[in-house]
C-alpha cells in the first residue's frame, strides 16, 4: 500500500493500483519545477463539484498541500477509491494525488492557511455554519465565487455564531476555472480564469490578495466585496435567457445552443437593461465597472468586433467558448436556482437600499419565482441575510471597509 501524502486524524489512506503509480510518477516529473518554487502552504478546498475537483487537482499539481472536504462526503468517494483526481487540460491527462481527503470538517480546517470554498451559493450558509467553530486567526476564507453578496452572507453567519477569531472572508466574482467533471474523480479544465478579488473587511484586501495570488496568479484586487459582488456577470447573463426561453427549454429539454441561439436580439436587449441597472448600482458605490461587453471581451469570451460594436447580441453571437453550450435540460438549473436568489435578488435589494431603480431585475425575479414556484425574493440573500439591513450608503461603505 502506498500512501499519497501525510495522513492523520480520520483522513483516508489512499491505495494505488500499479497503473496509477505510473501516472503519479509522470505527474511528479511534470511538476517538479513547480514544487521547487512553491511554498508549502496548505489550502483547504471545501466542495465536491466541478470547481472543487478542479481546484484540488490543480493546486495539488502546483505543489500545495490540499485538504479536500465536502458536506456531501460521498461525492469524494471516487477520489478516495482512485487515490487522486484525474486532471485533463492542455498538457494532457494525469492522476494527481491529493494530500488529504477529509471525512470531518475539524481535520479539514486544522493547520491550514486558506479555506477555499467552491460550492453553489445555496450551500454557503451550511458551510459557514460548519466552519464557524473551527476557523482560527491567521486563516483566510475565500468564496470562489461569491455570487452577489457571498462574503457578506458568510460573515453574517460567523457573526451569528459568535466567531471571535479575526478571519477575513474574501470572495471572487467568478470561478477560477472553466471546467467540468467528465467522469468519476476526473475533471477537465478548459480555462484558468482571471478573477476579481476582495476581502471583507476591505482594509485587509491587499494582504489577503497577496496570499490569494500565490494560489491563483493574475487576478485583480477590488476595493471591497460590494465591487466583486456587483461584478457578477453570470447573474446578468443567465437569468434573462432562462426566463425568456422557458417554454423552449421545457418543451425541447434544452435542445438548442443557449448563448448563440437563445440570446436573440430582443433577449440581448433585456441583458443590456439588467447590465445598465447593475452599472447604476456600481456608480452609486463609487465603482466604475466595465460594461458586460467590455468584461466579456477582456475575459477572452468574445471578438474584438463585438467589443467595438458594444452590442450584447453580437458579443454572445461571436463568443467562441460559448458557441456550442447547450441550454439546460430544465428550469431547476443553477442559471435560475443560483443566479436569481444569490445573483440578481441581492442586486435588487441593494438598489432599494441605495435608491437605484431596478425594474428589469425585479421583473425577472418575479417571473423566475412564478415559473419555478419558488419565492426567490424570500429564498435569496436579503439585506438581513447579508447583515446590512437598514444601512445607508455611508454605513454600508464603512461596514465593507472595516467589517
Amino acid at each position: 500500500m502506498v500512501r499519497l501524502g501525510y495522513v492523520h486524524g480520520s483522513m483516508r489512506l489512499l491505495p494505488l493500483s500499479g497503473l496509477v503509480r505510473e501516472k503519479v510518477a509522470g505527474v511528479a516529473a511534470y511538476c517538479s519545477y513547480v514544487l521547487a518554487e512553491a511554498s508549502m502552504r496548505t489550502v483547504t478546498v471545501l466542495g465536491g463539484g466541478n470547481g472543487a475537483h478542479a481546484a484540488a487537482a490543480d493546486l495539488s499539481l502546483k505543489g500545495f498541500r490540499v485538504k479536500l472536504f465536502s458536506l456531501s462526503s460521498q461525492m469524494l468517494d471516487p477520489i478516495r477509491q482512485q487515490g487522486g483526481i484525474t486532471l485533463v487540460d492542455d498538457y494532457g491527462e494525469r492522476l494527481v494525488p491529493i494530500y488529504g481527503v477529509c471525512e470531518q470538517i475539524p481535520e479539514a480546517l486544522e493547520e491550514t492557511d486558506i479555506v477555499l470554498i467552491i460550492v453553489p451559493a445555496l450551500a454557503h450558509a451550511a458551510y459557514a455554519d460548519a466552519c464557524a467553530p473551527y476557523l482560527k486567526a491567521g486563516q483566510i476564507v475565500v468564496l470562489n465565487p461569491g455570487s452577489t453578496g457571498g462574503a457578506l452572507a458568510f460573515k453574517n453567519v460567523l457573526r451569528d455564531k459568535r466567531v471571535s477569531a479575526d478571519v477575513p472572508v474574501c470572495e471572487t466574482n467568478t470561478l477560477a476555472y472553466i471546467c467540468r467533471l467528465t467522469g468519476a474523480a476526473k475533471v477537465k479544465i478548459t480555462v484558468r480564469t482571471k478573477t476579481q478579488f476582495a476581502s471583507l473587511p476591505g482594509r485587509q484586501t491587499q494582504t489577503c490578495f497577496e496570499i490569494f495570488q500565490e494560489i491563483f496568479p493574475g487576478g485583480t484586487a477590488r476595493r471591497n466585496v460590494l465591487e466583486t459582488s456587483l461584478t457578477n456577470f453570470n447573474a446578468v447573463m443567465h437569468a434573462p435567457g432562462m426566463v425568456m426561453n422557458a417554454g423552449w427549454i421545457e418543451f425541447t429539454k434544452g435542445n438548442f445552443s443557449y448563448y448563440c441561439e437563445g440570446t436573440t436580439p430582443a433577449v440581448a436587449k433585456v441583458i443590456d437593461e439588467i447590465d445598465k441597472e447593475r452599472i447604476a448600482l456600481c456608480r452609486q458605490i463609487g465603482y466604475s465597472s466595465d460594461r458586460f461587453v467590455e468584461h466579456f471581451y477582456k475575459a477572452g469570451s468574445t471578438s474584438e468586433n463585438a467589443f467595438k460594436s458594444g452590442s450584447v447580441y453580437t458579443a454572445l453571437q461571436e463568443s467562441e467558448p460559448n458557441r456550442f453550450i447547450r441550454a439546460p435540460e430544465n428550469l431547476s438549473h443553477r442559471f435560475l436556482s443560483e443566479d436569481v436568489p444569490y445573483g440578481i435578488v441581492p442586486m435588487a435589494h441593494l438598489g432599494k437600499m441605495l435608491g437605484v431603480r431596478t425594474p428589469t431585475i425585479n421583473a425577472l425575479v418575479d417571473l423566475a419565482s412564478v415559473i419555478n414556484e419558488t419565492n426567490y425574493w424570500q429564498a435569496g440573500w436579503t439585506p438581513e441575510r447579508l447583515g446590512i439591513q437598514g444601512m445607508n450608503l455611508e454605513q454600508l461603505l464603512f461596514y465593507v471597509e472595516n467589517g
Partner: protein
Amino acid sequence: MTTKPSIAVLGGGNGAFITAADLKLRGHRVSICEVPEFAKSIEGILKSKSIELQIVGNPGIHGGLAKLDVVTTDPKEALSGADIVLVVVPAFGQKRFAEACAPHLDDGQVVVLAPGNFGGAIEFTGVLGAKANKRKVKVAEMECMIYSGFKSKPTVAWVSGYKKGLRVAAYPASDTTEVMETLLKVYADLRAAKSVLETGLRNINTVVHAPILIHNAGWAEKTKGKFLFYWDGCTPAVAHTAEAVDRERISLGTRFDLTLDSMLDVSLEWYGHEGAQGSNLQEVLSTNPVYAEDYAPSTLQHRFLLEDIPYGMVPMESLGKLTGIPTPVTSAIITLACELIQVDLRSKARDLNGLGMGRLSLQELKKVVDRGPESLK
C-alpha cells in the same frame, strides 16, 4: 326590425372577413367596410363581393361562398340601413373607426365592438359624444372575438373556433338589456355581463398571449415562430405565469363585485363543444384542438404584445393601483415586453388614464360604467 337584423361589419382583417361571411351565410344582410387607408385589405373582394369561408376542425358553423351586399370604404354606405354595427378591428384601430362612423350613425343603431378589449366601448362612446352630439346610439362590447381563424387568401377565410358563452356589456350597463335583445338574434350564445369592467376583465387573451410569448421570446424570434404557440409553447412552467396573471385578474374583479371565471373555466366554456378538455390550464391550452395549427408569431412586434399589453395588461395594472390589489406578475410581463421590443407600451396604453378616468375613485368608476358619465354630475 325584421327577424334577421341587418349587419354592418367594420374592419378588413381576419375577424371581419369571418364575421361577414358567417353572418351572410346565415341569411343576414351584410355590408363590410374598411377605412380608406387600409383599402388594400378588402381589394380582393371589392369586385366579386364574395368571401369563401372554409371550415377547419369542428367549430360548429357552416362554410361556403358568402356573397356580401356591400363592400366599401365609405362608412356612410356601409352603415346605411344597418341594425347592428360590428366593429371587428384591433383595439388600436377602434378609435379611428369611431371617428369614421360617428357622423353617419343613426338613432337606434347598436354598435358592438367585437371584441372590446379593455375600455373599447368607453373610448368609442367618447368619440361619438364629441362628434355626434349624443345620438341615441347604443355602444356595447364583447369580451373577446367570437371566431378563431384567419384570412388565408385575399378572398378566403378559415375558421377553426367559435366561442360560446361570450359576455357582452353596453356602456353604460343600463343599456345592456336592450342591446342584448337585438344581439341575441344574431348570436344566440351570448350572455350579458354586469358592465364593461367585466367584459374588459374577461378578455383572457390578456392572460395567455403576452405571458406565453414572453416565455418563448427567444424561440419565436430565432425560429420566426416555427412552433405551435399553445401546444408547444405553453409548458407547465409557462402556464404558471398565465395562472398567476389570471389570479391577479380575478382578484381585481372582486373589487368591482365581479365573480370572474378562471381562464381554465372560460376555455372550457368557449371551446368545450369543440373538444377542449383538461383539469388544468396547461393541459387545456396544450391540447385544445382549436389551436392545432396556431403557430407562434414570427416576430415579437406582434399584437400579442402590441395590443394585449396596452389594451389588456396595462389597464389591469392601473386597476391594481386604483384598488390596491397587487399585480406584480402582470407588471413584470409589461416591463419585459417593453424592453424586448423597445417600445414604451405603458405610455400609449388605454388604461384608466388613457380613458380619461385616471382621477376617478373606485366608487365613481363603478357608477360611471353602470350609469354613464352623466351620473357623476
